[in-house]
């Protein structure tokens, strides 16, 4: 066993885990707080990834952009364009109820995917974008660059976590949860339900864009299969359900634990005899499907269920709040 290798696997594991954690936190804003069934996560992820990639990549004949802007600018721009996309989507279909919103968002994500794959002038189509930089690219070479990138990713995770926590622990978050629990009652107590949903959708979409940007910088390469819904939309949903929707810590824990299962099962699969080399991958997918059912039936409120943020004023009044 090579400890150095294991260390670098852990680094890579945590980079992926961090990117998924951001996606999960973003979905938590939309679903956990706001009750919006967004099944088009991959679409916002892709918009963010392409925005940042096109702005920061080296100039190329094959696609638009290549402005070599600094990576943080790219990431911010990713949040803005993904947020704007989210705004447009929400403007059209925020009034739709649960499953219908899911259908509409899948449909829109698929349309976005087709635009990415078809509009060669913009994205270089299926050939993808190469030479996407990472932040601080000049400083470190080789595998050590991963450590630096890990720090960048988790710095973003912490920022996103803090943002989400502040949103949660505020009248804004409280109202949003009220909208989620009962739309009519929220209206009856003076809340503009559509406006809250719109904001939620935009904030979530922008954060998803950030995750997309980070993944493009991590791979240094971006092509349309980055929008694969199985890997982005579906997996993120599973992570949030497993971690505990409505709970930011739960979102991060869910992202890391489901990603651990997804990634580490392959190491087992590799221990099977050679005859199983192809089959082990199918068995792995089968097990993931079964595990999901297990989580849904046994841990349906997640590892860390939703908790009310508590009230700062309670401390100086009484101790009944738990």
């Amino acid at each position: 066993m090579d400890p150095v290798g294991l260390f670098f696997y852990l680094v890579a594991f945590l980079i992926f885990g961090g990117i998924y954690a951001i996606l999960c936190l973003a979905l938590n804003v939309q679903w956990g707080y706001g009750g919006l069934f967004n099944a088009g996560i991959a679409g916002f992820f892709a918009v963010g990834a392409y925005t940042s990639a096109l702005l920061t990549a080296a100039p190329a004949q094959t696609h638009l952009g290549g402005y070599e802007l600094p990576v943080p600018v790219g990431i911010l721009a990713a949040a803005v364009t993904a947020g704007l996309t989210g705004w447009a989507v929400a403007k059209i279909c925020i009034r739709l109820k649960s499953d219908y919103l899911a259908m509409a968002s899948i449909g829109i994500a698929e349309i976005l995917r087709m635009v990415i794959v078809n509009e060669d002038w913009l994205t270089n189509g299926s050939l993808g974008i190469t030479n996407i930089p990472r932040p601080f690219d000049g400083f470190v070479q080789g595998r050590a660059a991963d450590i630096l990138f890990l720090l960048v990713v988790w710095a973003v995770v912490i920022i996103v976590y803090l943002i989400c926590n502040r949103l949660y622990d505020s009248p804004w978050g409280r109202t949003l949860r009220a909208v989620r629990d009962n739309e009519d009652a929220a209206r009856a107590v003076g809340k503009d339900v559509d406006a809250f949903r719109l904001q939620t959708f935009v904030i979530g979409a922008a954060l998803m864009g950030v995750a997309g940007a980070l993944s493009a910088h991590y791979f240094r390469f971006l092509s349309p299969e980055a929008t694969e819904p199985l890997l982005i939309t579906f997996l993120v949903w599973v992570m949030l359900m497993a971690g505990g929707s409505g709970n930011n810590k739960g979102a991060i824990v869910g992202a890391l634990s489901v990603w651990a299962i997804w990634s580490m099962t392959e190491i087992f699969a590799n221990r099977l005899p050679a005859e199983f080399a192809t089959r082990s991958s199918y068995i792995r997918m089968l097990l993931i499907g079964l595990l999901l059912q297990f989580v849904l039936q046994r841990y349906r409120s997640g590892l860390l269920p939703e908790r009310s943020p508590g009230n700062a004023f309670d401390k100086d009044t009484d101790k009944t709040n738990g």
Partner: protein
Amino acid sequence: MSGALRISIRRLVITLENIIMRFGGLSAVDDVSFAINKGEITGLIGPNGAGKTTLFNIIAGRIFPTSGRVLLEDEDITSLPPHERSRKGLARTFQIPHEFGALTVLENLMVAGDTSRGESAFNAVLRRSLFQREERAVYERACDTLDFLELAHVRAEKAGNLSGGQKKLLELGRTLMREPRLILLDEIGAGINRTLLGKIAEKIKRLNAERGYTFCLIEHDLDYVSRLCGDVIVMAQGKVLTRGTIDQVRHDERVIEAYFGGGKYEVGA
């Protein structure tokens, strides 16, 4: 109709003018006009399907009438969405409790407060000091309301876990979080036990007497109505049948007809 004559225009909270509500071919509300007097507890009664809840929904803005006007004091609010009516002081409860299930009891009340600064996502993340005073005020009002409703012991409980009666109290509490000009109570007494029913009635009376709150309530239990309401409006088949004190309407032939289809019974006896 003597009630309407008694009061001057300025004392009307809500005025309905020729409200018609059609669903497909059916008229749920058929040319209804009446006004609700400030500072009183008005009862709205009638058999099932009379259009009472539809009318409530029209007043609260949950649905919009096919024709007619709704006035809040002198202002035409016919096309105002429900949340804006709520901000103008129109509060309501629902027939089936509409609690915010995953929120604590305290949060359920605080949500209903006026937290316009804290409801900005930008402030929530970056300028949290901006809404602390507002939040404090809402918190204190919520605590007072909990004490008033005797719900303080469950303040940290998730609202979804409350009993049916406690949920009704909570709904009532939510209407008190902003200074309400009119509180619409849709069968607040339905499906809860006698003791709690008495308690709710007492609270409503106190709110009316001590704070001068105006109520309009839909209720089936006429004894209950008689304990609370000085003014009763009777509806049947989408129309207003009559209006008066509970004793007047109880003995009104048309009311008996509407409730029992003809027999000579005393309503609610």
